[in-house]
């Protein structure tokens, strides 16, 4: 599984430069078709790499968005959070928990539930007064 919460040295993270090697041509002299072909192959290779990277970015963006808005793609029942990462976290003195990603809609709904309960308690308090 990939690391998402820290950077780790990885060959794929190297600064990448084009593979294209420019072959100087002089038309009135020696022409090397091998070099000419290599140049076009390298050009295709570079374009393919860029295309793949663009698709990777798109996938990463989709992954991020779907993690926080997955409610329609997953069963809406009994799914409060999705374990996704190969990671865990610890807060205060609590034991370690798995990293769970809660849907943003669900989080909003939870906030709503909290405010309803506060409202109930406030009403109760004002009645007691």
């Amino acid at each position, binding site marked *: 599984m990939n690391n998402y919460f820290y950077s780790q040295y990885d060959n794929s993270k190297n600064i990448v430069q084009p593979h294209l090697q420019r072959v100087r041509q002089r038309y*009135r002299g020696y022409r090397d078709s091998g070099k000419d072909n290599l140049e076009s192959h390298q050009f295709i290779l570079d374009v393919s790499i860029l295309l793949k990277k663009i698709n990777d970015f798109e996938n990463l963006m989709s992954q991020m968005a779907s993690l926080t808005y997955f409610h329609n793609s997953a069963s809406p029942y*009994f799914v409060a959070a999705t374990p996704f990462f190969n990671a865990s976290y610890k807060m205060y003195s609590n034991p370690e928990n798995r990293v769970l990603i809660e849907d943003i809609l669900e989080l909003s709904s939870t906030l709503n539930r909290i405010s309803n309960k506060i409202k109930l308690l406030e009403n109760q308090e004002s009645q007691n007064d």
Partner: protein
Amino acid sequence: MTEPIYTQRRTAQYSGNHSSTEYNKRVEENYQDLVYLYNKYNVIDTKLDQMFSRVMTDHIFLSNAVKDSMDRLKALEATEKMMSLYSYSQLTYNPGSSNGLSLAVPASEQLTFNSIYNYVTLPIVSNASFSVLKMYNSVGEQIIPSFFETRVEPLNSIDAPGALIDTTAPYYSLYDRYDRVWKRSVIVDNPSETGALMYFYVRVPANAVDKKVNSIHLSPYPLNSVDILSIHYTQATNPTLSSQDSWKALNSDALYNDDLSAVGQVPPGGWVNAVNSDIIVNSAPLCFNVASLQFENKPITGFRIGMRQKNYIRENNKYVYTYGLSDLDIRVNKYLNTGRIYFRFSAPENQLIFRVNSVTPKIYNVPLSLTELAFSNRVLYPTSANDLSVIPQSGSSTVFIEITLNKLQDDTVPLLSDLIISYE
């Protein structure tokens, strides 16, 4: 600003380019373009990784802060000797056994729980329930039906004809996709106290009106910032989706009139002569059930939702009021007549529950006088023999409440939104 492309367009003639200088120049330009694109991707790669990590980390700890608030609220409740529903993890269909008999609820009797809209309701018959707006083709891809019809009616001087509007299509609210929301941004030079106001009309498709729609779901966008002023329906045969149609409040019975705790739980716009307003301020996702029998002689043909955005984002000396929906669904749901579920309630730390004095359901789509028909419960205390009993034991750290919900005679399907337990 458009970024430059190094490679120049060339119009070589007569069997192509014969100048090696030109040829070399073209290759050089290709190379420069590639270098630029590679640099761009190296920068984006790093930025995206950092953003992904930041968004996720913030998201995790923000949701932890919400959980923390819940715990504090639980502690406050404990001082009042009360408990309520907090998490789906409190639900179970199999709490154990009583007198050696399993208490497991058979699949066909299991109440349905929805964690997005926060309710427990009757067992839904999924293969007989369907959406009248969301359609899918034979390979499961979502399609927008041609009969989907909506209308936006601006209501005040901010969101008015002639205002600068940046909007996506209202049908975006139907998509089950995170990258599609219906947003309507009103851009103005000066802010307004009243905010931006509009009516959003949606027609119930003609082929579905005789199916008795009985449920409406909506998720305002942006979350927790849009006010839902009212929800009305019409039974006009061919609604014009305007004020000309006869509109009635969805909460036409004025359920829980003037009860502040019902705000957000009853469709707004139905209270009469109330001191308090039923407007849902900073609305979370909403779900309302419609009792279909009361409309049986004349089906619902359209809905009207009053929306307001009072919050703005300031950018480049302009004020942007954004509102809309990230999800909209009108459904025909079939439910079984009755169902059961168990809720697990744990005593606060270092405390025991000796007796549950009362169990109060919060069902805001059923009048208080009919709650006894829609809801019943049984308290189960764990025994020392690892069993469950209705007789209070000498202190329990956990109790189970068995809930039974029933459909009312007028076909009202109760939506249980909370359960308040008083104990000693």
